[in-house]
């Protein structure tokens, strides 16, 4: 007799189902199987209509986020062995509209990532760079953790403030903003301040901190956002006393460069 495990999957087919509903499947249990493998098995052998996103199956493309027993996780990096012999409930990422089954609408999320000006901004853009700029390992380490985001959206499914009001820019986008603010090669802080300063920017966060707990890449968006609050506070004071916004932060390299 093979050991088996019960997987419950939330289904929603917009063309047929008025509401989401739960369907359960019993699968042969193998300890090395991931939740994503289990979904493949269900699709191949039980219900070819089941819809979910995936690609890399190595925790780097950010496609396969879903709720596992109510916790946002990557399907390809969650293993049945950590749940067996209990059953597992799989649902679409919380706080996003459900398109179909485990697929949610990520447009708002991706638009927000784009809206924080996530690229190096320079006072004068160098047209034909002849040499790489210098950046010491220490300067690199200042922003590298915040550059590890795979845009999986788990942190949005974790953040209740985004769930309550999706105008909030949310953890990943604000962490991305912070990543560029902290890059020694960047001079674009002033251009990113309006987003940070707004009510939907860093001030929409109440430091729940769950975003950082679920992040599969150790990005720590909670830290990023709350450090951003200090930046925004300083800008508020500068604004009150009539100074113009700081172009770059203390992280920027000051020396003249090509």
């Amino acid at each position, binding site marked *: 007799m093979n050991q088996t495990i019960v997987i419950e999957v939330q289904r929603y087919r917009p063309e047929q189902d008025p509401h989401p509903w739960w369907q359960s499947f019993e699968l042969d249990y193998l300890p090395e199987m991931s939740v994503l493998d289990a979904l493949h098995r269900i699709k191949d052998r039980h219900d070819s209509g089941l819809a979910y996103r995936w*690609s890399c199956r190595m925790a780097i493309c950010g496609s396969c986020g879903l709720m596992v027993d109510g916790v946002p996780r990557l399907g390809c990096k969650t293993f049945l062995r950590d749940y067996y012999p209990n059953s597992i409930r799989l649902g679409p990422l919380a706080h996003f509209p459900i398109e179909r089954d485990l697929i949610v609408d990520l447009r708002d999320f991706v638009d927000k990532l784009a809206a924080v000006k996530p690229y190096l901004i320079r006072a004068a853009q160098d047209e034909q760079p002849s040499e790489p700029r*210098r950046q010491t390992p220490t300067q690199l380490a200042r922003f590298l953790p915040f550059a590890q985001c795979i845009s999986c959206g788990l942190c949005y499914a974790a953040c209740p403030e985004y769930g309550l009001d999706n105008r909030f820019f949310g953890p990943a986008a604000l962490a991305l903003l912070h990543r560029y603010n902290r890059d020694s090669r960047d001079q674009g802080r002033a251009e990113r301040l309006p987003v940070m300063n707004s009510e939907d920017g860093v001030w929409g966060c109440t430091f729940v901190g769950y975003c950082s707990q679920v992040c599969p890449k150790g990005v720590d968006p909670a830290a990023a956002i709350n450090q951003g609050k200090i930046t925004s506070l300083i800008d508020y004071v500068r604004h009150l006393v009539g100074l113009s916004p700081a172009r770059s932060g203390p992280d920027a390299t000051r020396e003249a460069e090509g």
Partner: protein
Amino acid sequence: MDRITTDIAIVGAGGAGLRAAIAAAEARPDLEIALISKVYPMRSHTVAAEGGAAGVAQDHDRFEDHFEDTVAGGDWLCEQDVVDFFVRHAAAELTRLEHWGCPWSRQADGRVAVRAFGAMRIERTWYAADKTGFHMLTTLFQTALRHPGIRRFDEHFCLDLLVADGRVQGVVALDLAAGTMRLIQAKAVILATGGAGRVYRFNTNGGIVTGDGLALAYRHGVPLRDMEFVQYHPTGLPGTGVLVTEGCRGEGGILLNRDGYRYLQDYGLGPETPVGQPRNRTMELGPRDRLSQAFWFEQQKGRTLTHPVWGDVVQLDLRHLGAARIDERLPFVRELARAYANVDPVHEPIPVRPAVHYTMGGIETDRRAATRLPGLFAVGECASTGLHGANRLGSNSLTELLVFGRLAGEEAAQVAATTTLDKSPALLREADAIAARARSIINPDGQESIPALRDELGEAMEAGLGIFRTEEGMQQTTDQIASLKHRYRAARVTDPSSVFNTEWLQALELGFLLDVAEAMAHSALARRESRGAHHRLDAYRTRDDEQFLKHTLARFRADGPPEIQHTPVTITTSPPARRSYGDDGQGSSEP
């Protein structure tokens, strides 16, 4: 059917597609560029590349040496003028990426660091820890956001090219969320759809790497070139095929067989180098084809380890590097080994075996990334510019995306400047026909299961077109593919719905895979010699420059197997010579 008109349509938003889009937008900011991808750009499989990107960086390195390494690595099947162009532009492109914000790993003084890579005589591989592809893709995606001319069509599946009046006029794409069809009409089209590793079962590729663009061009009469050359990467994790980067060996990792013996010295790659002191082009830093072949021999001799679930493996030992270095240079490998092999490389060796990794061949292009079909360009892993020859060197591919992505974008911008759009309703009718054809494969009464066909294909490819090949095995595989193609016509696709119909997509992708596999198998059969990644165990065990210093072209035929032709290789400065690695130069290309 929506009709959208644009100047350039780019299918694929991986490294190559994004670089092309940026280049076109920079060349002509007034151009409208449609960037079409079946997944969000940052999910493209470039994201998974770990090790690094090659470009001459050190003062004592030379373009000529990068050229020689690439040509020798490709077993002289490279287009040498293309290689020359590539090596001269490589570093400049990597530098540009630095200026766009790519977090390259650095030396203490702030200069970009480079690491050793297989079959490169000097360290010239730029890296961002062991997430190089991820950081490059992220940088490119974010840079593309600056350009208002680039309009993204995320989660749009390209069903076909629209070809009329002897030139490509656009593409027909399915909006996956809406379930609606779009005709995206363009003056030039760039295919950047990536490789086709998923024709095999055991591979390092993501689920989306299904050769779509290859099949699309092929079906429209554009030849696929050198398709028999499929690279096995020597170090995939058993079970999943998840890649363990060559960067591990670049940093000093060693390969051991069941006796703890560094077996590579037995295969013309020695002498054994001291542990922790890797030497370029020697032992673990030999080329991938050789390393994968060595595994096969060890397996035949019974000198591999046998794992109850994973089968035969060898061991990649990183322990002597120490935790600090592993965490700094190879943190992702540590994460992957822990998750997918339940092994912490700081304390234990990683079990590995060869896995299908890269398609050297692809859509034939000229030196300017143009295909034979006017208006159509191809770039990235789906293209065959002739850069990689019979075996790609690790870290040349990421740079290729940049160098040729840029070139394709600029060339397409030029074409767009001199072309006008055809406004006729005939195109719309043709697009409707394409959509109807795609829909017609939805067939609830079909008898054949898509997953079963897919798995059989993967197994057939592994059986006949693996690391070593024989006439008989390849013939069997070709027969199987023919029969699978036949059965595919009766495939069962039950879901008639339109929102995220992933069952339908799987079926369409399988159709692409089958055509690509067919081209691979027939190309392989026709190459009666051994070269690079194509090695035979029958009568053709050696390289035969006399007859086969030639590219293979596979041309699609609707009613039967492809037509195979051979075309000459461009040789400029490096006449074919013996490939030798390690100390002794004993390593000829025969097994």
